[in-house]
């Protein structure tokens, strides 16, 4: 591949052309056509080490897996077999050996097979996935499974029993990419045993076994194998598109180097793949070229492309913001953004009553593990520091497995009680969420707790009259931020948060270093990055009741509150309702 703006890119060597469970998992975890191309055809030497936090989570996952295996072996000592890796053998040879051993174990009728390998024979892929094309027919489908479990009473080539696939994950819930991985393994297994497993399972980090039907997954698996893989042969010009998820990808250094070298358009925060392609078609190949493009031409392109009329002009301004490292005001904010429930959102500038700043961290898909911090303050209090020293600041600790909705209930009570107090003055409190994800996760939590009706009520009574700070800012400024962080946003406006970062606390640093030594990642890096540190703390809080993790979260949320209050004070300075 070449790009007229850059030197010739390194030729990628084809890989073993094996579609593995990891390829499937990665694709459905965070879809990226270029990653798929690289996973299948790329030079393995270009892969880089996972980021520190990613390595930590991977190692946690391995330890969780080992604990699960140990438990199963204790329960069924005579019925288990582990197909161990042999590090002395070359990788491919070892896989062949393990595949043969797995087949043998299945023929013997072992109850549980750990780390079994199942794969298609050479040239067999068309029999498993008939819609696959000629180019893909040399591919092999391979799965390094966690668990193969015998199911009696289901006829197969082995006899009156068959096997089904289970995967061990450290996540709390059974997630879609995990289920796709199991479905993929099941497809391959069906060829080996002559019977399609009806179900698969995920052993979660919450120690639950989630069974699910395989058949509904197979439509998507087949489309992936028959069509999406075929499209990976020709990645096209400038095929990558950097996103925040790239941090977890093993090819990130390769893509980032290319992006920097090409001054790639995806370096602009918020640039979507379709927008980049439209700009490339117009001959705009880099940020520099975009910055030099005529506004009128960009408007015409936006209109013809079918997006927002000023979409490309906005990108240009965002690129400028990135170049200068500071916010660039938008000339026409347009209509106010809609909250998740639809409808208009109040404007803090014209709000008469108090504000309720809401900072939080929510882990789990539905926000079950949440830590919430709120600060109720009047307009005149905005711009002040250190909310814990002021009346109205409340820190709530995380919800627990027994009370998953506790944070949500507290927030709801806080808002409704405050509004009741204010009603005689015909005022109301205006909630301001300091992150995008928190209101969304709370909505999902409400739905998981009480169904759609409860979620709808939460949206109606809380979210419809709330402001989401990053969205409010986004309507007014082009921010050079890839992902929104309130502290980073405040810094862009010249505001430095006064309270000490959580990573600076000696006990925190000590604890993180101990983990770093144990799990093998760079502790210093983690201590410097509050969002990563917070993520680490949320995970550790589940297993380790040491107060230090609660401290990390509290401190980080207090910093968020301070940053949010001072930022709001700065932006609303002098503006009266």
């Amino acid at each position: 591949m070449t790009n007229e703006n850059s030197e010739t890119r390194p030729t990628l060597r084809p890989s073993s052309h094996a579609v593995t469970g990891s390829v499937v998992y990665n694709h459905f975890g965070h879809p990226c056509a270029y990653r798929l191309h690289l996973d299948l055809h790329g030079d393995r030497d270009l892969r880089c080490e996972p980021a520190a936090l990613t390595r930590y989570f991977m190692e946690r996952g391995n330890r969780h897996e080992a604990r699960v295996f140990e438990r199963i072996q204790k329960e069924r000592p005579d019925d288990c077999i582990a197909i161990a890796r042999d590090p002395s053998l070359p990788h491919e040879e070892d896989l062949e050996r393990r595949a043969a051993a797995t087949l043998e174990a299945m023929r013997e009728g072992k109850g549980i097979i750990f780390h079994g390998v199942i794969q298609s024979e050479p040239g067999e892929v068309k029999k498993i996935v008939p819609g696959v094309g000629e180019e893909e027919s040399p591919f092999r489908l391979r799965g390094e499974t966690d668990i193969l479990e015998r199911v009696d009473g289901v006829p197969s080539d082995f006899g009156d029993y068959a096997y089904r696939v289970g995967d061990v994950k450290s996540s709390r819930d059974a997630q879609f990419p995990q289920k796709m991985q199991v479905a993929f393994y099941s497809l391959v297994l069906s060829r080996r045993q002559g019977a399609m497993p009806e179900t698969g399972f995920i052993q979660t980090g919450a120690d639950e076994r989630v069974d699910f039907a395989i058949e509904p997954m197979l439509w998507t698996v087949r489309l992936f194998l028959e069509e999406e893989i075929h499209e990976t042969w020709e990645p096209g010009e400038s095929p990558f598109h950097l996103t925040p998820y790239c941090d977890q990808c093993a090819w990130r250094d390769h893509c980032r180097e290319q992006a920097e070298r090409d001054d790639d358009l995806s370096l602009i925060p918020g640039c979507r793949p379709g927008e980049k392609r439209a700009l490339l078609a117009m001959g705009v190949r880099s940020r520099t070229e975009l910055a030099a493009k005529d506004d009128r031409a960009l408007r015409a392109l936006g209109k013809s492309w079918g997006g927002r009329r000023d979409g490309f002009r906005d990108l240009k301004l965002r690129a400028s913001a990135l170049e200068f490292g500071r916010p660039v005001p938008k000339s026409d904010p347009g209509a106010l953004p809609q909250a998740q429930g639809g409808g208009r959102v109040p404007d803090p500038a014209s709000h008469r009553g108090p504000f309720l700043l809401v900072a939080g961290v929510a882990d789990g898909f539905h926000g079950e593990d949440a830590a919430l911090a709120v600060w109720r303050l009047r307009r005149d209090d905005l711009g002040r520091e250190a909310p814990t020293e002021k009346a109205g600041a409340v820190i709530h600790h995380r919800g627990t497995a027994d009370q998953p909705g506790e944070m949500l209930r507290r927030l709801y009570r806080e808002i409704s009680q405050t509004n009741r107090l204010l009603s005689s003055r015909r005022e109301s409190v205006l909630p301001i969420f300091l992150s995008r994800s928190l209101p969304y996760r709370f909505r999902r939590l409400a739905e998981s707790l009480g169904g759609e009706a409860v979620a709808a009520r939460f949206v109606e009574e809380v979210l419809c009259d709330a402001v989401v700070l990053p969205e409010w800012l986004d309507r007014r400024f082009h921010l050079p931020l890839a992902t929104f962080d309130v502290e980073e946003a405040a810094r862009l406006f010249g505001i430095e948060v006064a309270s000490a970062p959580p990573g600076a606390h000696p006990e925190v640093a000590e604890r993180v270093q101990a983990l770093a030594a144990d799990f093998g990642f760079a502790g210093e890096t983690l201590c410097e990055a509050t969002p990563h540190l917070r993520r680490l703390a949320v995970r550790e809080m589940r297993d380790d009741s040491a107060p230090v993790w609660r401290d990390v979260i509290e401190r980080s949320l207090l910093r968020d509150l301070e940053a949010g209050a001072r930022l709001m004070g700065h932006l609303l300075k002098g503006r009266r309702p």
Partner: protein
Amino acid sequence: MTFDLSEFASFVDLEFRAKFRAVIDQISLPVADRVDRYTCWPGLIVEAMDPDSGRLTLRFKTNPSKLRVGEYVYVNNLDVPPHQVISGPEGVIEALDTRQGICRIRAGYRQVHRFLGRFRIGQKLVLDLTLPTVHLNREMPLLALRLVSGDLGDAPRLQRIRGLMSGERRAQLLEDTGGAPGSGVEEGDPSLRRLTPSQRRAFDAATRRDFALIQGPPGTGKTHLLGLIVRDFVRRGMKVGVCALTHHGINNLLLECLSHSDIPDVCKIGGREHGRIEGHGSRLRLVKSPGAYFRSKTIPAVTGFTQHAAFSPVARNLDSDAGADALPDRFDVLVFDEAGQLTVPAALMAMVQADRYVFAGDHKQLPPVVQTLRPGSGPARSVFQHLVEQADHEAFMLEESFRLNDELVRFPSEVFYGGRLVSASSAKARRLQLRTNQRFADVLSPEAPSQLALVRHDSRSQEAPEEAALIAFLVKEAVEGGVPAEEIAVIAPHRRQNVKIREFLGLLGFHGPHPQVDTVERIQGQERDLVFLSMTLSDRDAMARGAEFLFLPNRFNVAITRARKKLVVTASPALFRALPRPEALVGAEPPLLDDLNVLKRWYFQHRTRAVDVTDRAFDALSELTRLGAAKVSPATPSDAATRTSAKQNSESGFGPS
């Protein structure tokens, strides 16, 4: 199963609050934002006026809105402040000619005086869709729920209703309930003999029991059957009430009733426009107000009304001391059409008018339109769905489709109707007749009644110009080949795509109302010989965000069952790989995945015979651009890449042929 009325009360309240909020939005947004929502049409210029009749003739260049003939609008000066929009006079769009750029507005009911002297020639106006005031009324459905719960007195009728809704009470034969079957339609009657076996079973169930559910899949003649059932009731001396969600639905059924000469008189309550139902002489009476009707001592054989009209006299009586004891005895039986789109609270409002019911609908087609919950889920389900799935009543399914030919019936039958839906013998062999053989012959071939045409694009969300261009040329070729334009319909999920398609059709000389270009919601109930379905979407994020609505299987079912002879679906392959947000797929059996699998199953069935028309679609787009269409850039690199890839595919023999 218990019938939890509080769940429905909560739902009514939520819906009201959401709709109220939408109303506040609409009256506080500036013009540009109202235009974005397709409810506003600015910039029309007054060309002529007749203040006596309250008619305005307006000139326009384009119509960016969803406003059509028959829509009620506020008519205001262009610079009207948003909060004053609803203070303007109301009119109805009487005529619309896009080729001439002429729109005619007639003053609405009792609005003529408001037109007088308000407008002048050359004035620039803005039209805004009027607000649905009746749906803002929360009190009536809540009162109906309270009434049915027994809180206001527990009359036997209310106990029966609760029993039916909970499933504890089952349908009973009319003799058992004391109602004599009498002499309805005679056995030898030709209209009875013409019924198919499934229609006959449904007819017998409806006329011999006190409660019946009739499921009418697409094209099975449900309204025709209902007309016959009503005729039977009338011949037995029963007074029949006919209820549906929309006035259009009520009018259709009343028209069917009027086709039977032995139904002596029919009355329609309410509704601002009556369209085809007018002109039936002395047999038809139109009554504007429910009060006037219910005060009258004369009870026609058949009366049509909405649930609000049905409940308003009951609500008035509840205010008096009579309470639940004053339930009316005006009707012997209620026949509900469109019951698959009627919510439970809405149905209950009408059910208090009688002791016997026939519900006709299809819970596999469009569910009730709601704002706060996922359509068809929880208390947002239709009364038909509730009675079939929650209360577990037997539904008599009409099994012969007079619309769909033997190919077109296959997929919906298999996926939605348990394999029971078949093509009626009169429809089975129906095929499109085309005289010519031009560049889209492979797509329009009559030999493939259900055809997938692939257009490779990505990052398209509400508009896909390449698909729109393709469809415009397909329509042109079909019309040149002998298919009348009025026998063609185009369906797209987004109004923006519809606007684009109409724009391109205009460039090719199609300016009138045909072919009809619309969304699925507006096309339900209609049929054409040839239907084009432009799926439009390919942007992954847009599909994930909109998955709950866009990929509802019921919508897809309606979209693919409008055609009598041929259906052409244009789509990008990316559409069929759509997945919802990851959070919606957590857990053991996420329902959204099942929804998407319906689309994927359809794709797998049609993939091998699909035609890749990517190159031709882009050529069509270029042609239309040259013709002076909207300034659309012909190709992006990904498009070029996919076009090259598509070409390579076809050369290598790989991929869909």
